């Protein structure tokens, strides 16, 4: 734990792609075992923010502290850090040439050096928890989108991360498959996993989040408890965004 009691702490984080500033002076604190939801329109910087925390993107200003360690400094072991931070993407990104079991055991075996037998036993236990143990030896393209995304979550969990970043993980799914994925995320939240998730599922955000941040053009326009944001937004931009989402039938 860092000294100020936050598990993740972003201070004045700025990120540019060329001349375009996609994140501007982002300050965000996440306490351990809490779930923070990032909401906002496409292109508001939610995905970039998550990628910066996993160092998949380099930031141009500010600092990020995870578990008491300043990860944006120079003397950081990126690979070791990423084993502590799981990330799940919108497009699953499973490895198509590997079976489900191989997908899940790759990082434990090669990055952590765990023996094959041990890694497979652990992977099967994780797959059993999500009811996909019978799919262990199949290739990803034989699974439904929802199943693939659940495998992707399990793959990210297999290295024993302390923080999970979920990047619009239900956006590519058919509506009837979203439920099973959200159920898994709900269980993760209940188990005390610290999470930051970018999502368009407002009712889900309202249910699991301890804090909701509304991102707008690279800035955290408003943050608060789900009740504050969804029932009594202070900012005009937040109200407009929520009204648009509501019209889309997503709340």
């Amino acid at each position, binding site marked *: 734990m860092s000294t100020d009691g936050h598990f993740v702490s972003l201070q004045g984080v700025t990120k540019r792609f060329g001349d375009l500033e996609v994140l501007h002076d982002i300050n965000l604190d996440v306490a351990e075992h809490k779930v923070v939801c990032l909401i906002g329109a496409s292109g508001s910087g939610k995905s970039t923010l998550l990628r910066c925390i996993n160092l*998949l993107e380099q930031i141009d200003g500010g600092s990020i502290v995870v578990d008491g360690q300043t990860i944006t400094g120079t003397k950081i072991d990126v690979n070791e850090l990423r084993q502590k931070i799981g990330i799940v993407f919108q497009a699953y990104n*499973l490895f198509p040439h590997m079976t489900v079991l191989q997908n899940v055991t790759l*990082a434990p075996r090669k990055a952590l050096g765990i023996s094959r037998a041990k890694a497979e036993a652990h992977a099967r236990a994780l797959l059993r928890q999500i009811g996909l143990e019978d799919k262990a030896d199949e290739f990803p393209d034989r699974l439904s989108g929802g199943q693939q995304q659940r495998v992707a979550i399990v793959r990210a969990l297999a290295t024993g991360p302390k923080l999970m970043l979920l990047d619009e993980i239900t956006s590519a799914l058919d509506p009837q498959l979203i439920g099973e994925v959200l159920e898994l995320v709900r269980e993760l939240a209940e188990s005390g996993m610290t999470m930051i998730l970018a999502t368009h599922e407002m009712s889900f955000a309202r249910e699991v989040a301890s804090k909701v941040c509304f991102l707008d053009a690279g800035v955290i326009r408003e943050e608060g408890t789900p009740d504050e944001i969804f029932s009594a937004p202070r900012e005009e931009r937040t109200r407009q965004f929520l009204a648009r989402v509501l019209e889309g039938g997503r709340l």
Partner: protein
Amino acid sequence: MGQFLHTFFSPLDFLRATPQIWNGFQVNLEVMVVAEALVLVLALLLAIVRGLPGRAAGPLRALAILYTDIFRGTPLVLVLYIVLGFATLNYVGLSAETLFTNAVIALTLVYTAYVTEVYRAGIESVHPSQRMAARSLGLSYLQSLRYVVLPQAIRRVVPPLLNDFIGLQKDTALISIIGVTEAVTQANIYSSNYFNYAGHTVAAVFFIFLTIPLARFTDHIIRQRERRERAQAF
């Protein structure tokens, strides 16, 4: 017409020339196998170097590009003579007598340049999100390449790879010009002894019979892999 048939397809000359051509063709086979093995490994290394990220790897990338530019652009016949010329300087154990080695070096230099591009196309065809997913799990750059990118890349380039190897096999016929006694040399010897070109026909048949199985083999392994992946599902 009779004259034509006699010159290229005389049964007597077929029988008489075949043992001699076969002797020569075995040299083609040996050069081909050694060069192909070297090309497979060296081209992969070169393709990896060309894909290295970061400013620090800039000079290495530039060298790799320079290499492919030079050896893809120079005709094999010239490279053969240049290698022969280099060998006569008697550096690193080479000489005008190390015929087999000289031939392997020339073919390897040229075909490595081609095959590097094939590998590179394969590596670039793997979506960046695959590499990102591997890195996000804590795998290093090289581990991501080894376990995630290359298996998918190589799988995709097997057909063009085999195609380049068919080219290499045929180009082993050119090594006769630097003094290697192989199938074409033997055919030339036969034709000057008997004033008949059936020996060249025999040599051509050997080359054709070598490439057809290779082409069928390529088809076969592609189909087999597809079937295996599909079968896993049911």
